[in-house]
């Protein structure tokens, strides 16, 4: 996977991110009681925060569109994608297939995140981690999860 060299400036994108978060929050806050200054409901404080965030986000968008700000850092998709995938796989497998398999799959997927990793080293690390974690976390610290399916 190639890395994406982003054009455009970081003010614009930070602003967009904040506006989206604020908008989602505001949609949800609509269902809460806001109340008055004297009798503040559960929605009062979050509403204030979301409105401030919305305002700051819009300011940044305007700033980003009108001035040439700092560019966004280069995004490397390869490590991002495979690390996130490896965690999701661990989450999916740990209760269904047991800790050992979850670790082996996670390490196997995380292997692709680095260009420098070798299969030999990864395989040894994976097996060592599976054994060590089973002993430390399941046997000694007794987290309620089975080692094998």
């Amino acid at each position, binding site marked *: 996977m190639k890395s994406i060299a*982003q054009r455009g400036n*970081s003010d614009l*994108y*930070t602003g967009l*991110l*904040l506006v989206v*978060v*604020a908008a989602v*929050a505001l949609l*949800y*806050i609509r269902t*809460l009681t806001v109340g*008055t200054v*004297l009798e503040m409901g*559960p*929605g009062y*404080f979050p509403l204030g*925060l*979301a409105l*401030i*965030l919305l305002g*700051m*986000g819009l*300011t*940044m968008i305007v700033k980003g569109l009108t001035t040439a700000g700092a560019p*966004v*850092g*280069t*995004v*490397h998709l390869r*490590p991002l994608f495979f*690390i*996130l995938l490896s*965690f*999701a796989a*661990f*989450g*999916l497998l*740990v209760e269904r297939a047991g*800790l050992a398999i*979850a*670790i082996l799959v*996670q*390490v196997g997927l*995380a*292997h692709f*995140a*680095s260009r*420098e*990793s*070798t299969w030999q*080293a990864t395989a040894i*690390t*994976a097996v060592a*981690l599976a054994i060590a*974690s089973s002993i430390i*976390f399941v046997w000694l*610290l007794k987290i*309620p*999860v089975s080692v094998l399916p």
Partner: protein
Amino acid sequence: MMDVFSALGHGFSVAATPLNLLFCLIGAVCGTLIGVLPGLGPVATISLLLPATYALDPVGAIIMLAGIYYGAQYGGSTTAILVNIPGESTSVVTAIDGYKMAQQGRAGEALAIAAIGSFIAGCFGTVVIALLGPPLALMTQKFASPDYFSLMVLGLVSAVVLANGSAFRAVSMIFLGLLLGMVGMDINTGEARMTFGLIELSDGINFVALVMGLFGVAEVISNLEGVSTRIVNHSKITSIWPSFKVLRGAWGAVMRGTLLGTLFGILPGGGATIASFSSYALEKRVSKTPERFGNGAIEGVAGPESANNAAAQTSFVPLLTMGIPTSATMALLVGALTLHGIAPGPTIISRQPDLFWGLIASMFIGNAMLVIINLPMIGIWVRLLNVPYRILYLIIAVVCAIGVFSVNNSSFDIYMTVGFTALGYILRKLDAEPAPLLMGFVLGPMVEENFRRSLITSYGDPMVFLQRPISLVLLLLSAALLISIVMPSISKRRTEVFQE
């Protein structure tokens, strides 16, 4: 005075139990380890180990986590001196003269002075916590809710000072954090807020999943983007013991660095990194021979190394006496205390004397351990630099995943971590630091509670924050701090400090 001594005695009886000594040692060793390894900071490591402390008792857990933080200050100097790679941001200036000394065959001298300076500064900082803690906590206990609200504002503003880059963006990150902190049950009505119907969110966003994603995993991804550096050669260490002449030369720098660091640690917006930079600048200014700086001046190692350790120690003061974190690391400790069911605040000293005095005693013990860990065993740590990152990151990933899972034994928290990792990664790319977000998240519920309570007692009059003298002073301080960041002359210096 007698009270402090008897309390400290009690603290040592808590800290010297075999189990707590072990936790202290584990913390110190872990701290040294991450200090030595570049690309793994104390914030990431404490978030990695947070779940592991969940099973421990609160005192042991805090002793261990604190040890990681101040231990990292020791370890960071080792690689700065030997291979010119500062393990931590706090050791960046140490590398300037330390590495030069190593090239001149004086590595042992530099390491010894760094360790001795760190030890003196660490112990002095700890004494300051012991002396300053109880009276400050008593004072804070008189605070009413408007005062607390303003105190938290001050704490949040200090997060802006510490953040690198645009102040406006740092403030926006605080608000984002505050908003994320609102997720979960409303304290007054018990109504679910912004949970999107997910039962897993009714207790709020899992703190461990948030920090692990934002700091731990996102940092791993960032590290994988660069080309890893491998250290093949490093300077040989001949003699560790410095001559009397060197000791005398470093003495003044150690003292000045210690005092400067102690002050910077307590102040909001201070912190260990800024303390070490300021100390280097100060040493260069007071020196009669400033031209030696950059060419292996011992003061350039002694001052900053003492300053960062003193600051690392005294930054616990606002946390333990007022419950206000002044940096991301301290915010993590607030989270750790909360996970263990202890509300951080002025009552910690009176209600949890074991925790407060035990922690202080453990700091003395930990600092002594660190000198031993760092000086005679230095060869082991340097060899650790040879562990390639392509293996290290696999281990970190697995420990992260198990760690997050084990807090609530829920896969949901792992998916949350995936989400926060993505957010943390995006924020890094946008040059928005996640540290202010973490401060907002941690303080969010307390800010809201005190805001609501203040306005209830004042019958809805917002002027209450300006009418109470304590609150007014705190707000004025916050305003002054904010203005000082925005002011062009000072903000320019701040950029210089960060860029150096």
